[in-house]
């Protein structure tokens, strides 16, 4: 009893899940898609996209009204 996760815990967990997700996305882009050896605009562009969309999703996630 009483061991359920509070809203704050769920929020931290959600943020952690989103960050880990985009770390994986970055890995797929740099290693599998081989953007690590691609021209700078592609290599950096992909990582900037991943960082920006990750931040947008975290903000939208935190914006939920419980």
């Amino acid at each position, binding site marked *: 009893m009483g061991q359920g996760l509070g809203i704050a815990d*769920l929020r931290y967990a959600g943020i952690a*899940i*989103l960050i880990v997700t985009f770390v*994986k996305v970055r890995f797929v882009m740099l290693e599998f898609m*081989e953007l690590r050896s691609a*021209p700078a605009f592609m290599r950096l562009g992909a990582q900037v996209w991943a960082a920006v969309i990750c931040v947008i999703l975290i903000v939208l*996630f935190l*914006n939920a*009204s419980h």
Partner: protein
Amino acid sequence: MSSPPAATFRESNAHIPGEEGIWILIFGDLVVFSLFFSIFLYYRGRNVELFDASQAHLNQELGAINTLLMLSSSWFVATAVQAARKNLARLTPLCFMMALACGVAFGVVKVLEYAEKIRAGITLNTNDFYMYYFVFTGIHFLHVLIGMGVLSVLAVYTRAGRFDASSIRHLETGASFWHLVDLLWIVLFALLYLIK
């Protein structure tokens, strides 16, 4: 005109994998799916209770299995491209076939999952959460089917062996698309199945 100036060496050493056109398609897909991801979380934010209650009925195990299948599949494709560069005539088509097998398994799991939902009376019209669930995973599934077509062609195409620069470019084009399919699933899995 005979030799390029030394200053351009570094940039000319950089390599765009595959045909340039595939990257325009990948870019377009990323923009569209970024919009999908944002729309989903925006509307979740306006009705968290409904979204969380609906998510509780998703089969997380099946979602996790599919994530594993997608990652393995992507790894096989990356390995196939590496093998082709080393002119490994047997390993290359084998890796594409393994990747295809993972893709087929992903499809089977997805169909089982849809069937489970439909049997329980859950459809596109049930609520907003399931509308997004079916539309987003459905559009992704369409990508999986196209990708499986590409992988089949590559598995057959590489059976002849002997890989030159142009054939490796073809492989990279197909591989890049398949990695995109993997990447999109990683985010869909987190949004639809995991975050509460």
